[in-house]
């Protein structure tokens, strides 16, 4: 790499920072808010050391090990230890996704769109865009490290050295994934492929660390193969050691050398692997708008289902043998937790909370699937379909069918069935019917959200972002509604509030009927609206 191949790097860095200033600020801001939220929540839910020890007991379960960390400091579970053990994984994941998408967006995606051609035709070196993208990511990560360290010290009242160490380690681990993205961008020809490779690497890292930590307390040899462990193993706030950070630095350097050597081996616009040709003729089944919508969305649904299953089977293990006691001790010692879970059967209240969560996630899937219609329209593909002998009703019905069936499937199988599976695995004597029946109680509320999405798409497509606010509210109010002491009028904004915290509360027919009727009305409004409006609008 000579100076020539880096010409224009500084200018590009400034350009990328300017172009992505909102994007990067939102990412960093959200992750910092997550820290703030966690610190505040910990402070109010776990006031004494005793209360924190009940949380430590919960962290011994396999699901917790997978979703948290190697469990340093469980014997004396201080706020710092909780943060390092439980938050680092998610922070790294968040930062890694931000960093990888930033790299792909500014290199491969630019090349793919042809914009990079304009840039490279100027006085810009061959390696400059990639190096500039990486520098941009480094800057973002350094900013995050500094701010999060200050936050931990000032708001969390935590040890200075450990706070800086954990912040630096987190950012360095994320940079390893940024370097992975640089390599992925050389290997594949398309930005989607590069993003996919990056996310797969992240998923593998999460999995490897989880399995490693399950094998042995505080992690086995396997754990050390994951860049995430390189921060978790620093034992921040327990018995700090900083040398694991060097592993991240080394990995970044190695990956960049690899990336540079691959980069000089490929042509502009090309990858090392081509795209495999597909079929020359469509399968006999691909002959309707519904078949097309399914074809468009099945891969996405498959991944959502995989994620749902992993998450809710793992959560279900909390409902296994002996969990009753843990929860009871926890609730006895900590009235705030008790209030969150409500009164009555603890396993049922825990199930209810998980189901609400599952319902919110299923609604998130459903809305994103329903809004694919908006993308299709914006890209001009709806026009192509409607110029065929395909009625508007038929086309919209195809899009919504996939969204509705997909979301219902995720709720019933990806959430309710998965929870049952997890509970049974952990040794509980759980009744499948009980879980499925409870899950079904959330479906009418789910359909109301999807009906609203459809109606907004048909009548006021620009207003659809409001749906994400609604879903966020459903999550917060479902989890903390009783804790926050919100009035019913506000809680009632969430369709789930009307059907109640099933199975903790008994299923009532009336609200379910009303919700279903409302959903039907919303869908009818959507079809009526879509039949009369301009396409594209």
């Amino acid at each position, binding site marked *: 790499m000579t100076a020539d191949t880096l010409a224009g790097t500084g200018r590009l860095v400034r350009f990328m920072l300017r172009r992505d200033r909102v994007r990067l600020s939102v990412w960093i801001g959200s992750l910092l808010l997550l820290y703030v939220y966690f610190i505040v929540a910990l402070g109010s839910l776990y006031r004494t050391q005793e209360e924190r020890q009940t949380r430590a007991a919960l962290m011994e379960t396999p699901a917790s090990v997978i979703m948290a960390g190697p469990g340093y400091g469980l014997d004396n579970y201080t706020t710092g230890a909780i943060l390092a053990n439980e938050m680092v994984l998610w922070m790294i994941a968040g930062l890694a996704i931000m960093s990888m998408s930033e790299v792909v967006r500014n290199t491969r995606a630019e090349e793919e769109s042809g914009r990079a051609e304009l840039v490279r035709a100027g006085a810009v070196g061959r390696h400059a865009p990639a190096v500039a993208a990486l520098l941009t990511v480094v800057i973002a990560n350094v900013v995050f490290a500094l701010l999060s360290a200050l936050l931990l010290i000032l708001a969390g009242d935590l040890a200075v050295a450990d706070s800086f160490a954990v912040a630096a380690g987190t950012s360095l681990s994320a940079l390893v994934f940024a370097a992975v993205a640089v390599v992925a961008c050389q290997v594949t020809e*398309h930005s989607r492929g590069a993003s996919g490779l990056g996310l797969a690497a992240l998923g593998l890292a999460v999995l490897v660390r989880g399995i490693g930590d399950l094998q042995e307390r505080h992690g086995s040899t396997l754990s050390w193969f994951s860049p995430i462990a390189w921060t978790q193993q620093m034992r921040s706030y327990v018995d700090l050691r900083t040398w694991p950070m060097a592993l991240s630095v080394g990995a970044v350097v190695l990956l960049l050398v690899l990336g540079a050597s691959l980069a000089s081996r490929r042509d502009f616009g090309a990858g090392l692997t081509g*795209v495999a*040709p597909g079929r020359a003729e469509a399968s006999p089944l691909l002959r309707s708008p519904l078949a097309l919508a399914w074809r468009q969305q099945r891969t996405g649904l498959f991944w959502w289902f995989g994620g749902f299953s992993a998450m809710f089977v793992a959560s279900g293990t909390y409902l296994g043998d002996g969990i009753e006691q843990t929860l009871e001790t926890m609730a006895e010692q900590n009235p705030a937790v008790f209030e969150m879970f409500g009164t009555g059967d603890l396993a049922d209240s825990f199930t209810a909370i998980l189901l609400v969560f599952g319902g919110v996630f299923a609604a998130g899937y459903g809305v994103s699937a329903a809004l694919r219609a908006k993308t299709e329209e914006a890209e001009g*593909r709806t026009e*192509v379909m409607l*110029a065929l002998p395909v009625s508007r009703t038929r086309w919209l019905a195809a899009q919504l069918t996939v969204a509705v069936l997909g979301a219902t499937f995720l709720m019933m199988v990806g959430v309710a069935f998965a929870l049952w599976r997890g509970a049974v695995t952990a040794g509980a004597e759980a009744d499948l019917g009980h879980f499925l029946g409870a899950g079904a109680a959330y479906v009418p509320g789910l359909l109301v959200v999807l009906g609203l999405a459809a109606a907004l798409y048909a009548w006021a497509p620009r207003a659809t972002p409001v749906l994400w606010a609604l879903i966020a509210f459903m999550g917060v109010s479902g989890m903390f509604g009783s804790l926050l002491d919100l009035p019913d009028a506000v809680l009632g904004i969430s369709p789930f509030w009307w059907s109640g915290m099933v199975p903790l509360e008994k299923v009532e027919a009336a609200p379910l009927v009303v919700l279903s009727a409302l959903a039907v009305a919303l869908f009818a409004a959507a079809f009526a609206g879509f039949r009369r409006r301009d396409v594209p609008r």
Partner: protein
Amino acid sequence: MPSTPSSSTPAVEIRGLSKSFGPVRALDGLDLTVRPGEVAGFLGPNGAGKSTTIRILLGLLRADAGTARLFGGDVWRDAVALHRRLAYVPGDVSLWPNLTGGEAIDLLTRLRGGADKARTAELLERFELDPTKKARTYSKGNRQKVALVAALASRADLLVLDEPTSGLDPLMEAVFTEYVRQAKAEGVSVLLSSHILSEVEKVCDTVTIIRNGVAVESGTLDSLRHLTRSSVTAVVTGDPTAVASAEGVHDLVATPADGGTRLTFDVDDARIGAVLRLLGELEVHSLSAAPPSLEDLFMRHYGDVVEADAR
């Protein structure tokens, strides 16, 4: 269902069509007719209202005023039934990124009622399109070919083509022209929107020129040319002053040539007889007269716009 069309029912009939998008008046009383078996050119610069017109014809947009009928049927109410009889190629084709070109073609033709495999294969070969590539890897020209193959493979009574050759190279344009001629020979009606004049000139029977949402000129190519000028080149030995000052002669240039003077000028078609008589007195060695190209027609209609913009 649309009323049973007699042989004289126009394939496309638009009367006084208006459409506004907020304060922007895209169409302002447009008239346009395509008779059965006719290839009609629909010419206008970008933003003149061509695509809006076509979207109204396809029942995608709703007109504010006026009527639009296809085969006598209402374009909005009878959209699905009418679409069984037509095939559409948009100007900027967007395909489903994870489908191959072949899959997209099959899907489009099946939804239109099926196409015969041999014809699809022939079209793929003539347009040199690889159907196994994913749509997201196609260039603009190749996406255009996918839509063209799908449209030409299904037997439609009407082809609605919105700038169909954008992104195609000249060889492919020639293939396209050939298929439009073939379609015409089979009695298919064609509405061909374009801002490429030579394309329209090659295949169209009639032309409608649209500007700011109104048809400013429409008729057969011949009748439109009648309004315009021909370019004449002649080599003469006599004194050309009389020709230069004749009524209807424009932009005359005289240059010395072998055995006399070479004259090039434009002449109003209405005055061409008189000018030829004048030329006859000058001992003509050679003479050629070319009909006006649509380029000329076009420049005349938009020339003032160009000048206004320049000011």
